């Protein structure tokens, strides 16, 4: 399968000497749903800035759908749709004008632009806001407007820099659904986010960046396989005794009706249940204590530093 994005030895040194990117290599396959994660200041937005020409790189090569940005940047930009972290439209313009202008900058005639606007606004639930000035939109609507704007020229690679920041849960879920749909239709999606459960549920491949370096770049499945231990919260039907012990398992009492169990990789969860049942503890519900990806993320960053 060919690559939607290929980055090699990308470096960015700012005028004040700060090395934001220290020679990163990254490849994203066509049709992928890719997560680029990292703490604040790790270099995610700088990487995206270089790809879409808002940041001048110091060294390295960037190819978008095989087009080198040093040789044909306009050609590479045609393939890209970008949803930045901050709102970057003129809030005094209407939703329709913002989209018409963006289409025009890609050389799309008005008639075609208007047809695409109909369909984009419908899919993103913004049809009623078509003639509303952008400053009157809610935060969630503004985010969706930025997605509509990034899609108006039908790019094959969509880059979203923390698209759900400050968006309520319901809106976030509908955005996930929409992103899944366009990814299934063939658009490669590169996502940066602080919501790790978002990356875990949406993305197939992942890279973690820290201090301008790629710490890991693998499939989500492989990364989660590295998780050696998971914590489960178990709710019980009857009150628990003051002290509880399950041979072979690390369990602790949280309160009268709740206990916490650590399950090592290779340990059998059914065995734990059976032993608890044998001790007269019946479990009525069970859940993970924390996000699995978050554990790996924190551990990788700790190792890197």
């Amino acid at each position, binding site marked *: 399968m060919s690559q939607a994005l290929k980055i090699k030895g990308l470096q960015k040194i700012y005028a004040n000497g700060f090395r934001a990117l220290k020679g990163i290599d990254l490849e994203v396959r066509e049709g992928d749903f890719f997560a680029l994660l990292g703490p604040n200041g790790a270099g995610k937005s700088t990487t995206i800035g270089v790809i879409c020409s*808002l940041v001048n790189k110091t060294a390295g090569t960037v190819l978008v759908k095989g087009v080198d940005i040093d040789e044909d940047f306009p050609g590479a*930009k045609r393939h890209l749709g970008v949803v930045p972290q901050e709102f970057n439209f003129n809030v005094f313009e209407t939703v329709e004008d913002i989209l018409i202008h*963006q289409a025009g900058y*890609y*050389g799309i005639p008005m008639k075609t632009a208007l047809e695409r606007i109909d369909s984009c606004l419908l899919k993103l639930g913004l049809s009623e806001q078509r003639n509303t000035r952008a400053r009157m939109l809610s935060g969630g609507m503004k985010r969706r407007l930025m997605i509509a704007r990034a899609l108006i020229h039908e790019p094959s690679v969509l880059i979203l820099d923390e698209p759900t920041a400050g968006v309520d849960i319901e809106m976030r879920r509908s955005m996930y659904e929409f992103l899944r749909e366009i990814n299934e239709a063939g658009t490669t999606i590169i996502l940066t986010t602080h919501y790790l459960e978002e990356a875990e549920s949406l993305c197939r491949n992942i890279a973690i960046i820290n201090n301008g370096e790629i710490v890991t770049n693998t499939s989500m499945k492989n990364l989660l396989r590295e998780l050696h231990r998971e914590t489960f919260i178990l709710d019980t039907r009857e009150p628990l005794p003051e002290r509880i012990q399950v041979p072979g398992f690390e369990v602790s009492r949280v309160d009268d009706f709740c206990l916490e169990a650590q399950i090592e990789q290779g340990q059998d969860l059914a065995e734990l249940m059976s032993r608890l049942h044998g001790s007269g503890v019946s479990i009525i519900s069970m859940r993970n204590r924390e996000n699995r990806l978050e554990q790996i993320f924190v551990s990788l960053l700790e190792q890197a530093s």
Partner: protein
Amino acid sequence: MSPYEQYIALLTLMRKEIRRYTRIWSQTLLPSAITMSLYFLIFGGLIGSRIGEMGGVSYMEFVVPGLIMMAIVTNSYANVVASFFGAKFNNSIEELLVSPTPNQIILLGFVSGGVTRGMLVAVIVTLVASLFVDLNIHSYAVVITVVALTSALFSLCGLINGVFANTFDDINIVPAFVLTPLTYLGGVFYSLELLPEFWATVSQANPLVYVVNAFRFGVLGVSDVSLGFAFGMIGAFTVGAYWYAAYLLRTGTRLRT
């Protein structure tokens, strides 16, 4: 981008720029009409009637071309500097920077907004002037060419100011401390013949001298400098400003980090 796509991009930018200033016409087009009416009334009518002739014509006739040119200069400059800095300030300039639109089209798009506003204001102020004095245009070709070149030159200067500006104060400093003094010292209200030799020589470095005199020649047929030299200087300043503005966009100065 194909030439047709570039044409669409340019048309889009032009449409956006023209809609921007026509939507707020009371702030962009009306003030020039009012200000120039006051200039015509005070300098042309009240004071001018006591001055007599200048450059072989009545003082009122003498100041009209300069005042029209002053309106063109300030409006074309203000239009582009406000629009470009506004786009930088709200980050909407990124819409253009991430698109495949070539820098030359971005430049032409913003400049076209300034040029059309400059020309529109020229028509409005000329209509106002005609209420005060009978204008018999000496050469329409010269008038139209000078208006087009001048508004292009000062639109480019506005864009350069917009690129470097970091705050709204920065977009007011140049018009207040550079443009206005140059305009007043550019022979709008007096003939260069009145100046001592030293100051007349210094004035040769002021681009406003050439635009005012070339325009005055187009309207009245009189000028302090030769028309060919004036056109040469206006052309040179315009080419220089265009080259520098294009260089700033190409290198992403103050636009890309």
